[in-house]
């Protein structure tokens, strides 16, 4: 039976009669070898080369509906891997055949065997060898010739052109020697069949090795793909069934048992469990999930059973989007490659011109045998030039570098971001949510002697007032009240006064909570409390004045705790040579206190959201290369303005779509990882570009014979072929060294 297999999802099929009807309809379609309906999961599997449109039409004519099932990314990659493996084996086979002829011929020459044609017997013998070499050129190197010819017709020239011209010229010259030796001077009647065969063999070998090495460059995407299970346990019509992932649709109920991976994105409807999200968020501790919580595909269910409703499937899941982003970034261009790109675009015709010029020089001015020297130089120059090394230098490193980033939870948007991150000298960091947890806590509450009541009473009043507020600090007051089991009182006339605070009436008492400006506006004497507020601010808390019935009642202080690793991340970034600027809407005292704790020198406090972008711009105007780290939502303009925007958003969709670099874990360490990685990748690209340039810049003149006056010998075309074949392998292997990159934190 044919290997070609297609799967369709059926509509309207419900009984054995339907099965017969559909299978019968398919049997009449040209190219269908076998068609089987599976009623349990309502699928149709068709073997054969029939087009999917014809199959769908046949099912529809039979009175049912059908749509092709998407091939999963995993299946596709498996197919591609199989295809690559086939190609690899094919290249090795061609290499073995070509070298099987080339090596004995070369050995014959090296061991002193006659390579000249000077008698009819030699003509006959070399004629047979020539035909054998032609067979090798056609079978093992035919693709070079067809590629060169098609490229030629399109006014294009590529590596195939060089290989075909080099080996073709050597073979054609040798055949001329065999057929009509009298046309050539006696000293030039040398055959080069071994060169043609050896070059074809070596280049096939080089391509095979390159294919192998390239396979390793995409290991990161493979790892991400492996996060997905191929099937999901779907509950349909009260029955559980294991379905291929591609057949899960939005709205399906999916059951996940302990130890299983979440197959698609969705929301929990029943059950509770701990879910390990470290692969997506970098958060090492499992997260408790219960009814109403969101689950991401690829995460691991630890201990309970969950029943959830599928909301995003296939390419829509967060994991799929991450994979897509990594793949896109892996194949994007890097500005540093622009010069290499320009050279690549004119490389092959330029080499052809150099080869002709070098051959003419040898023909006109070279020592005898001139014709033989001319041919050797022409062939060697064509063969040694390697556009592949030049073309591969950047993409291979970007591929490995971006993939490595994904392994450490650093999603890099494109090659440009990767390059720019390596050149940053300034990092602007938003305090809230980046240096701090982003969830403020009540740290202190103190009452005035004039307030008739305890601290608890004041907290109850203030929490009641804040229940109408959406300010992040309000949440701190409310959660403190919840912790103390305080009952919230009735509130009316709530008002949020921009840049001042809030006011309202709680249980008939007029309350004010805010800064000094609010108290001044309402003519409330803050007395000694100003010093206390300053003191609290210096410790890193945000303190606010509270007034009840137009009299000072006390102060409350709220602080957003620093992230555990913020200080070490800042130290690491400073060690990388970055100057850190902290941005915050807090007052100067609080901001300075936080900056002191973290060792940050430059603080911009009391900022409005729109000021952040302005500050990034000012730093850039001063000549700095500025990166900005923020949560990806509130800082969007500043992130966009910076040369590289790092979104510490734990992979929210918005952040993934907009930021240059998205950090999957909520830690500034990710910024340091990204910068270290980008510097490592850029270093690798430069090594590759340097190597490729130097190889061609030295190799082509050597092949043209510039060393002849010193060595008295020309470079053999066979050695030129070996050098060319392995130059691109070297580039790919060097890029693969990046796979061992480890950020300093984990090294």
């Amino acid at each position, binding site marked *: 039976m044919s290997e070609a297999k297609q799967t369709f999802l059926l509509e309207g099929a419900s009984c054995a009669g339907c099965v017969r009807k559909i299978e019968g309809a398919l049997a009449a379609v040209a190219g269908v070898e076998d068609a089987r309906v599976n009623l349990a999961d309502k699928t149709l599997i068709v073997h054969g080369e029939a087009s999917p449109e014809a199959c769908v039409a046949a099912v529809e004519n039979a009175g049912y509906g059908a749509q092709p099932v998407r091939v999963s990314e995993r299946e596709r990659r498996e197919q*591609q891997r199989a295809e690559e493996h086939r*190609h690899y084996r094919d290249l090795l086979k061609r290499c073995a055949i070509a070298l099987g002829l080339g090596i004995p011929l070369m050995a014959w020459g090296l061991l002193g065997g006659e390579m000249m044609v000077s008698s009819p017997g030699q003509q006959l013998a070399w004629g047979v060898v020539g035909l054998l070499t032609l067979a090798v050129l056609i079978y093992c190197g035919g693709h070079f010739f067809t590629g060169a010819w098609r490229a030629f017709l399109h006014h294009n020239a590529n590596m195939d052109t060089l290989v075909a011209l080099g080996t073709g010229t050597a073979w054609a010259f040798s055949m001329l020697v065999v057929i009509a030796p009298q046309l050539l001077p006696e000293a030039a009647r040398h055959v080069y069949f071994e060169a043609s065969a050896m070059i074809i063999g070596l280049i096939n070998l080089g391509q095979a090795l390159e294919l192998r090495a390239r396979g390793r460059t995409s290991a990161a995407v493979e790892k991400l793909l492996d996060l997905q299970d191929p099937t999901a346990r779907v509950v349909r019509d009260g029955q559980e069934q294991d379905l291929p992932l591609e057949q899960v649709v939005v709205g399906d109920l999916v059951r996940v048992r302990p130890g299983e991976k979440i197959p698609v994105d969705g929301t929990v409807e029943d059950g509770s469990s701990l879910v390990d999200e470290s692969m997506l968020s970098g958060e090492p501790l499992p997260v408790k999930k219960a009814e109403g919580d969101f689950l991401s595909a690829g995460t691991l269910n630890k201990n309970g059973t969950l029943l959830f409703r599928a909301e995003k499937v296939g390419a829509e899941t967060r994991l799929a989007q991450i994979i897509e982003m990594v793949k896109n970034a892996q194949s994007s261009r890097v500005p540093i490659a622009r010069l290499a790109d320009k050279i690549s*675009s004119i490389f092959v015709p330029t080499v052809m011109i150099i080869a002709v010029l070098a051959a003419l020089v040898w023909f006109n001015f070279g020592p005898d045998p001139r014709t033989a020297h001319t041919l050797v130089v022409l062939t060697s120059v064509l063969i040694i030039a390697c556009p592949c090394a030049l073309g591969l230098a950047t993409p291979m490193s970007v591929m490995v570098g971006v993939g490595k980033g994904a392994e450490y939870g650093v999603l890099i948007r494109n090659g440009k971001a990767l390059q720019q991150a390596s050149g940053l000298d300034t990092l602007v960091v938003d305090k809230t949510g980046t240096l701090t947890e982003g969830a403020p806590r009540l740290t202190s509450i103190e009452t005035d002697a004039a307030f008739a009541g305890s601290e608890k009473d004041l907290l109850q009043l203030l929490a009641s007032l804040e229940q109408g507020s959406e300010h992040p600090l309000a949440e701190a007051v409310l959660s403190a009240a919840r912790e103390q089991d305080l009952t919230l009182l009735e509130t009316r006339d709530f008002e949020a006064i921009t840049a001042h605070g809030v006011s309202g009436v709680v249980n008939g008492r007029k309350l004010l909570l805010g800064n000094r400006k609010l108290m001044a506006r309402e003519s409330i004497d803050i007395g000694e409390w100003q010093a206390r507020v300053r003191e609290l601010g210096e410790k890193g808390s945000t303190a606010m004045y509270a007034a009840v019935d137009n009299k000072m009642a006390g102060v409350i202080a709220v602080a957003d705790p620093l992230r555990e690793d913020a200080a070490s991340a800042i130290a690491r970034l400073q060690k990388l040579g970055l100057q850190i600027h902290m941005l915050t809407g807090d007052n100067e005292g609080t901001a300075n206190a936080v900056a002191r704790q973290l060792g940050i020198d430059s603080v911009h406090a009391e900022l409005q959201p729109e000021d952040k972008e302005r500050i990034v711009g000012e730093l850039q105007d001063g000549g700095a290369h500025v990166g900005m780290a923020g949560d990806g939502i509130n800082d969007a303009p500043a992130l966009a303005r910076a040369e590289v925007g790092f979104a510490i958003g734990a992979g929210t969709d918005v952040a993934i779509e907009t930021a240059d670099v998205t950090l999957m874990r909520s830690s500034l360490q990710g910024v340091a990882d990204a910068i270290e990685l980008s510097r490592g990748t850029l270093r690798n690209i430069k090594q590759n570009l340097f190597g490729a340039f130097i190889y061609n810049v030295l190799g082509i003149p050597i092949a043209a014979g510039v060393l002849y006056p010193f060595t008295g010998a020309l470079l053999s075309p066979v050695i030129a072929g070996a050098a060319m074949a392995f130059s691109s392998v070297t580039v790919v292997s060097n890029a693969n060294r990046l796979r061992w990159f480890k950020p300093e934190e984990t090294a």
Partner: protein
Amino acid sequence: MLTLIVNLAGLLLIAAIVWWFWLTGRTGDAAAAGPVPATSVEILVKDGVYDPDHITLPAGSAATLQFRREDPSPCAEYVLFPDLEVSAQLAVHEVTEVQLPAAGPGKYPFTCQMQMYRGLLEIK
């Protein structure tokens, strides 16, 4: 006499290389069939060339191109539109859809990673 012929042939060959690969090739005048509307065709990736290699699209609207890769060599694995910041991995012996964003009028080259496969997208 032979020297003269060889030298003349060599110089003519250089002139031919310049003319064929850089002069006529760059203007696109020699393209037998001329540019082809991109959405109406499957672009074949085979034997070192995109076929057709000169395609057109209307300005201001997003489009989907279809690439059929028949060359298993790694050179053909990716197609890049550097100016549109679009790239795609092409599956062997399959059609891969490549989404292009809306773009203004202009010429946008597309290539493989190594710039050996070369094509031109013209947005009018």
